[in-house]
C-alpha cells in the first residue's frame, strides 16, 4: 500500500506538471496578448497559435482533478471546500478567458474584438496569479481541524499566522512568481509560433523577464525557508533531492542562453522544465503529506486519505490505457498544427 500510495502520488504530480506546462503557455500567451499584440493581425496570430490546443491543454486539469477525486476523496473534499472562494473565482476566470479566446475569431470586428481581447487577456493574467497563490497556500500550510476540514477567507491580516487567508504576503509573492514564470513561458511559446515584429517582441519579453524570474525565484525560496524551516526535512533525509533546486536555476539560465542564441525551441523546453522542476521541488518537500496543516497532527497524508485497494488496482489499469491513447492524440494534434502561424487566410484558426 505504501508503494501504491507513492505511485498515485507520482501519477497525480506528473499529470499536474503536464497541465501546468501545457495550459501554462496558453495562459501566459493570453496574459501577454494585450501587450504584445499591437495590431489586429498580431492579436489574431496570438489567438491562432493557441486556438486549436488550449481546450485539450485544459482537459489535463479536469483529468487530474478526476484522478485526485477517486484516489484521495478526502483531499478533494477538504481542499475544494476550503478553497471555496478562490476556486469559484478561478472558474469565472476560466469562463471569461475561454469565451474571449473562442469568440474573438467568431466576431472579428472593432468593438467586439476589443471586448473579447480584454476579457481573454485579463482573465489569463488573473488566473496565473490565482494559481500561484494556490500553490503558495499549500506550501504555507492550511488551518485544517481535527475533522480534516477548513475554510479560508480571501484575506485576514496579510500575515502568515495561525489564521491565514488565501492572500497574505507570502501567497501574493507566489502569485507574482507564477505570473512572471507563465509570462516567460508564454513568450517563449510565441517566439516559436510567430515571426516578424511579434516574434522579436516576444523574444525581448522573454530576455527581460527571465532575469526577473531568477530573482523572484530566489526571493520566494528564501521566503519559504523563513516561514517554514522544516520544509527541507525530506531534502536532508535524501540529499539527492538538492539537485532539484539546482536544476531549477540551470533551466532558467538555459532559457536566457538559448533565447539569446535564437534556439527558440530549446528555450521553450527549458521554460517547461523550470515549471516542472518547481513542482517537483514542492512535492518532494511535501511527501507523504498531501495537504499540510498549520498544526502538523492534522496533516492530510497519503495514508489517511487514500481509497480502497481494489479501486486503485482497477483504476491503474484503465488509467495506463487511457493516458497512452491521450498522449497519442496530443502528439497527433500538435503535429497537425506545427510550425509558425499565419493570418493571411483570415478565417478560423486552422488553415
Amino acid at each position, binding site marked *: 500500500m505504501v508503494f501504491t500510495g507513492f505511485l498515485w502520488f507520482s501519477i497525480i504530480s506528473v499529470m499536474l506538471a503536464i497541465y501546468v506546462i501545457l495550459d501554462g503557455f496558453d495562459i501566459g500567451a493570453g496574459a501577454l496578448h494585450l501587450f504584445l499584440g499591437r495590431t489586429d493581425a498580431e492579436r489574431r496570430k496570438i489567438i491562432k497559435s493557441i486556438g486549436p490546443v488550449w481546450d485539450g491543454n485544459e482537459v489535463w486539469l*479536469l483529468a487530474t482533478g*478526476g484522478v485526485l*477525486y477517486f484516489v484521495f*476523496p478526502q483531499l478533494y473534499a*477538504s481542499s475544494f*471546500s476550503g478553497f471555496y472562494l478562490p476556486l469559484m473565482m478561478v472558474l469565472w476566470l476560466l469562463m471569461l478567458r475561454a469565451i474571449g479566446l473562442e469568440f474573438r475569431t*467568431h466576431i472579428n470586428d472593432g468593438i467586439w474584438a476589443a471586448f473579447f481581447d480584454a476579457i481573454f487577456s485579463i482573465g489569463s493574467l488573473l488566473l496565473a496569479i490565482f494559481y500561484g497563490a494556490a500553490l503558495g497556500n499549500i506550501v504555507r500550510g492550511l488551518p485544517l481541524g481535527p475533522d480534516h476540514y*477548513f475554510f479560508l477567507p480571501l484575506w485576514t491580516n496579510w500575515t502568515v499566522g495561525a489564521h491565514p487567508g488565501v492572500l497574505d504576503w507570502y501567497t501574493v509573492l507566489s502569485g507574482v512568481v507564477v505570473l512572471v514564470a507563465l509570462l516567460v513561458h508564454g513568450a517563449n511559446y510565441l517566439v516559436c509560433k510567430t515571426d516578424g515584429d511579434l516574434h522579436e517582441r516576444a523574444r525581448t519579453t522573454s530576455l527581460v523577464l527571465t532575469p526577473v524570474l531568477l530573482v523572484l525565484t530566489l526571493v520566494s525560496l528564501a521566503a519559504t525557508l523563513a516561514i517554514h524551516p522544516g520544509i527541507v526535512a525530506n531534502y536532508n533525509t535524501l540529499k539527492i533531492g538538492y539537485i532539484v533546486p539546482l536544476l531549477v536555476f540551470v533551466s532558467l539560465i538555459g532559457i536566457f542562453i538559448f533565447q539569446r542564441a535564437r534556439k527558440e525551441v530549446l528555450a521553450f523546453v527549458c521554460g517547461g522544465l523550470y515549471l516542472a522542476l518547481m513542482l517537483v521541488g514542492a512535492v518532494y518537500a511535501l511527501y507523504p503529506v498531501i495537504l499540510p496543516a498549520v498544526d502538523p497532527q492534522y496533516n492530510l497524508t497519503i495514508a489517511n486519505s487514500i481509497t480502497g485497494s481494489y479501486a486503485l488496482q*482497477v483504476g491503474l489499469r484503465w488509467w495506463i490505457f487511457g493516458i497512452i491513447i491521450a498522449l497519442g492524440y496530443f502528439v497527433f494534434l500538435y503535429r497537425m498544427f506545427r510550425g509558425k502561424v499565419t493570418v493571411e487566410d483570415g478565417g478560423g484558426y*486552422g488553415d
Partner: protein
Amino acid sequence: MDSAVLIHRLHFAFTATFHYLFPQLTMGLAPLVVALKTIGLWKNDERYNTAARFWAKIFGISFVFGVVTGIPMEFQFGTNWSHFSRFAGGVIGQTLAMEGTFAFFLESAFLGLFLYGEKRLSKLAHWGTGVAVFFGSWLSGYFIVATDAWMQHPVAYSVLPDGSVTLTSFWGLLLNPWAIWQYAHNMAGATVTGAFVMASIGAYYILSGRQKEQGAIALRVAVIGGLLATLLVIGPTGDGQGRNLVAYQPAALAAMEAHFDTSTADLVILGQPNTDTKTIDNPLVIPKALSFLSNRDWNSQVPGLSSFPETEWPTNISLLYYAYHIMVGLGTIFILISVLSGIQLWRNKLFESRWLLWIIMLSAPLPYIANTAGWMTAELGRQPYLVYGLMRTVSGFSKSVSAANATFTLLGFLGMYTLLAILFLFVLQREITHGPVEDAAHAAEVK
C-alpha cells in the same frame, strides 16, 4: 430546511440546469453532423459538406459553452458537496476521472481538427475526426449518467472502516442497470433537441425564402433523425427507465404520479396533486394504465405514497409531479410533430406546408424544457437522498462553507450565466444570419 443546504442545492441545480442546455445540443447534433458528412462523402455532394460545415460551427459554439459551464460541475462536488465527496469519491471519482481521460481528451483533440483542419486532412480523415467527436461526446455522456446512476441506485461498493465507500466491481459500476436505461433515454432526449433545433433553423430558412436548398437539407436529415429519436424516447427507453423506478425507487414513482394510496393505479394525464387531501384536483386520467405500465397487468396493485414512511417521501412532491408531467406531455407533442413532419416529407410536401414549418420553427425551445424537466424528475425523485438509501441530502453539503458564502457565489453564477446566455444567443444569431451558403462563399473567397 436548514438554509445552507437549500443554497447549496440551488447552487448545484442552477449551474447543472444551465450547463445541460449546451451538451444536449452538442450530443444531439453530433450524430446529425456525422450523417450530413457521411452523405456528403458517400454521394460526393458538396451541398451536404457545406451543410455539415455550418452545423459543425453551431456544434462548436454550443461545445465551448458546454466546456466552460461543465468545469464548475466537477469542481462543485468538492466545493459545495464535500461531505458527499468524502463519502462517495472512492466510487464516483472513477467515472468522473474516466470521463476526463477517455472522453474529454478525445473530444478536445479532434474538435479542433474537425472545425479547423479540413484543408489539412484528407476527406476520409476529416470524416474520421467528425466521428471521433461524436463518439467522444456520447462517451462523456455515459460516464456522467453512470455517475448519476450510482447516486440513484448505488451498486458495486463496500463501506470502509472510516465510513466512506470504495469500489468493489468496475464493471458493476459501469453496467449499473439504472445507467443503461437512463443513458439510452437521455441520449434519445438529447437527439430530440439536436433534431428539433436543426429542423427549426431549416424551417426558418425555407419560410424566410433564403438558403432554401440548405434549409431543405437540414429539414430532411433532422425530421428523419427526430422521428427516430422521439419514438425511442418513449419506448423502449422511457419505459425501461420507468420500470427501474418500479424496481428501485417506488416512492419516487408514487410521487411522480401523485399516487397516494396503494391500489390499482390510474395514469394521471392532467390535474394538480393536493398533498393535504391526498387526491388529484381536476383529474383527467386513463384508468388502470399505471398498473399496466408498472407491472404489465391492468389490475395489479401499485404501492402508493402512504405505504412509505413520510421520511422516505421526496421532499418536493408537487414540483416532481409537474416536472414529470411536463416531460411526458412534451414528449407526446414531439411524437405528433415528428410523425406529421415525417408523413409530409415522405409525400414530398413538407417544404410547401407552411403551417407545419411554422410549428417546426417555433418548437425549438420545447425539447430543452422537456430535457430539463426530465432531469428534474430524476433528481427530485432521488430526494430526500443524495445517494439513494445511503446518504441523505442534508448530510452531504460542505458544512465548512456557510450559507452566506454559497449565496455570494450563487449570485456570481447568476450574473456570469446571464452574460453567457446573452453572448450565446448573440453569436448563434450571427451564424444563423450568415447561413451555410454565405459561409461557404466566404470560405472560398479566403482560400
